[in-house]
């Protein structure tokens, strides 16, 4: 994401060679060539500080949380709740009770769909999403639509891969009860004007969920500045572990929502007649949570802040600009997603070479890109293509990685000459 212009001091540049030494996996070779990892948008790699934090937790602190008086149970609870406070600071939530640990973005969105939307919506009510959403921000709302009889509306996108703001605004009405939008499109890279969209939705009384899966690794996210009601993201796209993510929700809304799963930890008292639910955030965390995942996620947040989110963003933007310029020079390459405001995600097609073949040829050169529909089939349908190849950049990528991508693309051209 572009660094905002009103910054006073420029962010110190990223020392990428030092960053790379933190990621042991980057020393691997693939098919006899150095790994060029350009698939961080699917899942980023983990740095040593994250791996070590998880190892330290596992070797020194592990037990179940919230359930014992013994030393390890205390240590595990402190580690887990410490991670929650770390997340609160990272996204600037008002209170730690607004930070719910979930498996990832998908689970966070489903929680809101089932616990917020389903009990409240009915025929005549509308949910508004956009044409560039990931399946994780489409399917849960279709399920709510089928369960409640509400209507699901989709704001249009344009050929650059941006949401048509006028179209979006025109679809808002007092019937709009919930707006669910990506912060950054995973298939196109587009950064959405989430603050503006949120304000407009609020003006109609709608509640706003932001799918932050692709935004969280590329920019500082301040949920209060955005003003959104829910914000969901995954740890594994932020250099943290898989199986852990966060749903942020405004306390007032969370407090009024019923739990969505029942079990241990989410209760205060249980008898066979009646159960009283635990307070926030535990009401939404039934069962033993992913404790080491939360610890790893907190360490990942420490890590990216130690590098500086602005320095990471500036570095990625340089790579994006470089790669975009190089790709534009190659005949037959079409970049899919050409919004002026993009995160470090570059989707493209090559005339005469199916993305799937491109993926195999690039892989034989050690270059890992994602090929396919990127869980955004409606986006592919809109652009009338079956799939794209997608290169995405993280803090550890270099100009040499871009050069390797370009070289591997000419190899593909040769094979299919």
């Amino acid at each position, binding site marked *: 994401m572009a660094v905002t212009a009103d910054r006073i001091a420029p962010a110190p540049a990223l020392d990428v060679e030092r960053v790379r030494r933190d990621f042991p996996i980057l020393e691997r070779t693939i098919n006899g060539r150095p790994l060029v990892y350009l698939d961080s948008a699917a899942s980023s790699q983990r740095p040593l500080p994250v791996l070590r934090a998880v190892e330290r937790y596992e070797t020194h602190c592990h037990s179940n949380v919230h359930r014992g008086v013994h030393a390890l149970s205390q240590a595990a609870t402190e580690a887990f709740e410490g991670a929650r406070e770390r997340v609160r600071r990272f996204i600037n939530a008002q209170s730690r009770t607004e930070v719910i640990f979930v498996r990832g973005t998908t689970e966070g969105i489903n929680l809101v769909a089932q616990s917020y939307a389903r009990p409240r919506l009915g025929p005549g009510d509308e949910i508004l999403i956009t044409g560039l959403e990931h399946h994780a921000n489409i399917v849960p709302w279709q399920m709510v639509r089928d369960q409640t009889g509400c209507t699901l509306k989709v704001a249009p996108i344009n050929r650059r891969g941006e949401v048509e703001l006028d179209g979006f605004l025109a679809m808002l009405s007092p019937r709009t009860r919930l707006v669910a939008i990506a912060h950054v499109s995973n298939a196109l890279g587009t950064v959405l004007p989430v603050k503006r969209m949120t304000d407009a939705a609020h003006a109609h009384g709608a509640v706003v969920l932001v799918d932050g899966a692709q935004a969280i690794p590329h920019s500082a996210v301040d949920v209060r500045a955005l003003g959104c009601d829910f914000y969901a993201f995954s740890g594994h796209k932020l250099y943290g572990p898989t199986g852990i993510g966060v749903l942020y929700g405004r306390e007032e809304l969370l407090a009024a929502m019923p739990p969505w799963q029942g079990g241990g930890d989410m209760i205060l008292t249980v008898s066979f007649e009646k159960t009283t639910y635990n307070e926030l955030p535990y009401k939404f965390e039934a069962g033993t949570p992913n404790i080491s995942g939360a610890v790893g996620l907190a360490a990942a947040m420490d890590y990216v802040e130690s590098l500086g989110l602005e320095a990471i963003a500036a570095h990625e933007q340089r790579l994006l600009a470089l790669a975009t310029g190089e790709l534009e020079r190659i005949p037959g390459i079409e970049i899919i997603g050409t919004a002026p405001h993009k995160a470090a995600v570059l989707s493209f097609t090559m005339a005469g070479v*199916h993305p*799937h*073949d491109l993926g195999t*040829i690039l892989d034989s050169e050690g270059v890992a890109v994602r090929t*396919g*529909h990127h869980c955004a089939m409606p986006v*592919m349908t809109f652009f009338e293509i*079956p*799939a794209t190849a997608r290169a995405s950049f993280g803090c550890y990528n270099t100009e040499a990685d871009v050069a390797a991508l370009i070289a591997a693309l000419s190899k593909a051209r040769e094979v*299919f000459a």
Partner: protein
Amino acid sequence: MDLKELYRDVILDHNRRPRNFGRIEPCDAHAEGHNPLCGDRLTLYVRLKDDRIEDIRFEGKGCAISTASASLMTEAVKGKDRGAFNELYGRIHSLLTQQDAVPDASLGKLAALSGVREFPARVKCASLCWHTLNAALERSAATVSTE
């Protein structure tokens, strides 16, 4: 891992100029195959005489491997009856999945598909059309048998 093994000249040629591309209307059997991983879609049209494949065509958008495999398949199965197709289907399956399967001369151009097995992520691309044809034939056999 050798790209040349995967993208042999026969494969590239059939990708560039797929044989038997198009529809048959009306047809006796047709089926759609879909590979959600890469978004490939393929529709097969078959004209049968008794249980012999008289004519077969395919349509769709796919990667080089799935397009070439479908093109090669249509050439290979034309004129075959159900038993002969079943036999070929089994041999292609081993060719695509078993490391030690040796393509014998009788497979002809289909032997070019053996390079795929070094690329596990691509086996589905090559097998899609075969599964689709098998489904089309089974379905038509089922409708025939219920008549």
